[in-house]
């Protein structure tokens, strides 16, 4: 303010000072190259604070039970399945879409990987067959979604809603509504084994998250995702193949659902047609709470990971305190609304700043 009150500055100097100030503000707001919290450090900081507060509540109410290494690993194991799903969802939402089918596809992948045929084949050759089966099922389901949406011009909400229903139904048919236990011990042994004291299930989530971050922030694929989600017409007129890219995004989400299916199998040792029910909603909630714009054009993997950890920790704190799952759901609903409202505040403030 005072700068402008100084008596009669040369107009040009005034002008350049204004520009300089504005660009300094812009540099503060984002664009710094190396921060993993890129462009949204403030928002991510808020999520970290929320997570820490949750931890404090956990420690106060459940004490050592909450703080134990076992419990921490339990939280992380639970977070892994939802987390991988949410990384895929982050790409779809950033690209301006939505995928309601990922929970069902997860279920279908877990069932297909545990059919007698697959397991026999896995016993004969290698447990990796089960992994490949799950990934292939996820990928194919994702490609079907993508083709319907990108080339068949079906609205994403409808196409993936149809897949949600159909994949769940197919899983029931294949499993005959029975739970199929994993009978290949090497499969379980591999994923449950620890590396540096951390189970491989958790490592898988970490690797997927890191790869997802690189893909979104450092590659042409990520740039296209942001462009397609931010302004599909501008992306198209700049020469980007928007349809093909849209298809890739759903394929990626399907693949992530396949990976999540594998982790689910490793964690529960069972393939069931009810695996992953309502996970699509948890994933969307985690992504949005994390700070990815539901309208597309802006996405954050770090935010998504924090969103997933917040929801999983919350569940854990409630469970430790014997809160009913019904009450948990009410709390989750409230948290989603509050988080999104806070985010909009922050987004508005940062926009006014530019």
């Amino acid at each position, binding site marked *: 303010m005072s700068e402008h009150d100084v008596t009669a500055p040369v107009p040009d100097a005034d002008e350049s000072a204004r520009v300089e100030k504005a660009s300094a503000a*812009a540099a503060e707001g984002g664009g710094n190259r190396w921060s993993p919290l890129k462009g949204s450090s403030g928002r991510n900081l808020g999520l970290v604070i929320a997570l820490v507060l949750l931890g404090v509540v956990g420690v106060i109410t459940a004490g050592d039970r909450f703080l134990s290494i076992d419990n921490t690993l339990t939280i992380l194991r639970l977070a892994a399945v939802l987390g991988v799903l949410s990384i895929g969802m982050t790409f779809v939402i950033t690209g301006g879409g939505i995928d309601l089918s990922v929970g069902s596809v997860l279920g279908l992948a877990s069932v297909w990987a545990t059919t007698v045929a697959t397991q026999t084949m896995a016993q004969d050759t290698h447990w990796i067959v089960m992994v490949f089966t799950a990934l292939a099922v996820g990928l194919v389901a994702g490609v079907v979604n993508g083709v319907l949406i990108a080339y068949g011009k079906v609205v994403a909400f409808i196409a993936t809603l149809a897949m949600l229903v159909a994949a769940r139904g197919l899983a029931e048919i294949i499993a005959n509504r029975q739970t199929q236990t994993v009978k290949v011990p090497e499969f379980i042994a591999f994923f449950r084994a620890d590396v540096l004291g951390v189970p491989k299930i958790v490592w898988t989530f970490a690797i997927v998250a890191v790869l997802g971050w690189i893909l979104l922030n450092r590659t042409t694929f990520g740039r296209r995702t942001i462009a397609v989600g931010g302004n599909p017409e501008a992306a198209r007129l700049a*020469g980007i193949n928007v349809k093909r890219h849209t298809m890739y995004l759903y394929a990626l989400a399907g693949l992530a659902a396949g990976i999540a299916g594998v982790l689910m199998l490793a964690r529960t040792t069972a393939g069931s047609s009810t695996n992953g029910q309502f996970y699509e909603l948890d994933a969307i909630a985690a992504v949005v709470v994390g700070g990815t714009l539901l309208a597309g*054009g802006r996405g954050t993997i770090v935010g998504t990971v924090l969103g997933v950890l917040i929801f999983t920790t919350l569940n854990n704190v409630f469970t430790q305190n014997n809160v009913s799952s019904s009450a948990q759901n009410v709390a989750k609903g409230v948290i989603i609304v509050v988080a999104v409202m806070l985010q909009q505040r922050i987004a508005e403030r940062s926009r006014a700043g530019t």
Partner: protein
Amino acid sequence: MVSDDPQTPAALLTMHGIVKQFPGARALDGVDLDVRAGEVHCLLGQNGAGKSTLIKVLAGAHQPDEGQILIDGEPVTIASPVAGLKLGVATMYQELDVVDGLSVAENIYLGHELAKGGFSQRRAATQNTRKLLARLGHGGISPHREVGTLSAAGKQIVSMARALSHDARVIVMDEPSAVLDSEEVANLFRVVRDLTAQGVAVVYISHRLEEIRQIGDRITVLKDGRTVASGLAVADTPTAELIRLMTGRNVEFAIPRRPAVPADAPTLVRVDKLGLRGSFEDVSFEVRAGEVVGLAGLVGSGRSEIVETIFGARKATAGSVEIAGRTLRAGSVPDAVRAGVGLCPEERKSQGLLLDEPVYRNITLSTFARTANGGFLDEGAEKREAREQITALDVRPADANRAARTLSGGNQQKVLLARWLVHGCRVLLVDEPTRGVDVGARAEIYALIAELTAKGTAVVVVSSEIEEVLGLADRVLVVSEGRVVHEGPSSEIDEHRVLDLVMEGSAA
């Protein structure tokens, strides 16, 4: 016409010393404006001068940090858009705020529906709507018609009728002519004159100085958030003076002269019997390296569709496009881009830019994959390329990290041009290159086009401003009702002849 004597009519609306501070920028820094009943008061200024902020303050969308607003000499606070309407100030924004799915009457009474005990009074609304439309000289529009089926001009009338339904005494019109063709503009002017004859004051914003000459009574000029001249009588102020006030420098408002295209220049673009069902047909022309071909015609004549079809953004239903001897795949933008064709689309914001992304990413949107190494972005190289163009085209502010949204129209256009310069295109298609662009940036864009042709780029220009097409182009195609009705050197045709051809074409 209102005389310039300040004694005669008292000011209806006075704004005094308005200051509006945004974080990092002082958008308004002491603006004065006085508007009298029954006048058309033109607000002039380059993009970024503060016009938009000022009308938002006036509409109640922004609160001023300092300064006073008086209506009929009484100080008022316009706390919200609703409060603004109650005080008799209505604003017609550039992006018309009508709801396409509702009827004309429903749109006009949107937000202040006529109702009794919770039941809407449809008949009263219909009757009042008829009266309002008749008052605007458009009694022919049915109150029941769905607004989405109206033309841009029709929607504008609906927007004006809504302003009148609030008993507006001041109507702010933000570039109302931007979406209209010349006939519709003439009609708009008639409506504006009727309104002022009824005592309504109109604050009129436009970049087209010739329009202001036709319709304006007095002018206030803004520059860098300050009033640099207020209450100038239109009749006594030469255009050169207005440009000097707006830009603070003397600009030759002329299109640079270019040398004739060499006779041996190769043909780069060959459009052969191109057609798009329902839009245009049988369009054939060639563009040589270093040549500018202009497409003149009214809005809706098919001229934008022609360049979009050449670019592959629309899939041709007939004919072909050849770039340097290679036939393009119909309906494939990537193929056109690979062949070295670039398009600066008509709607910068909705078709061209990622508004929330930084400027450099907007500049490299067509080339980031080329700069990348094995799929990994090289943002350092991207920023270098972008900065070179920012300097070369004098994009202001010269900040590659700034969100594209925060730039003025002229600078956004430069960003789009920069995109294709980085790409190194051989053929540039530009649709309305200077719409919503201020005078200073306009001259720069003209100079840039001249520079490109000197390097052998083939350019196709589409513009609503016939003078612009004639000035820029070596050859002109006049398009009317989806057909090319004339082709020839631009030196052999003038504005009136073009208009005649357009009219003949529409009559046929």
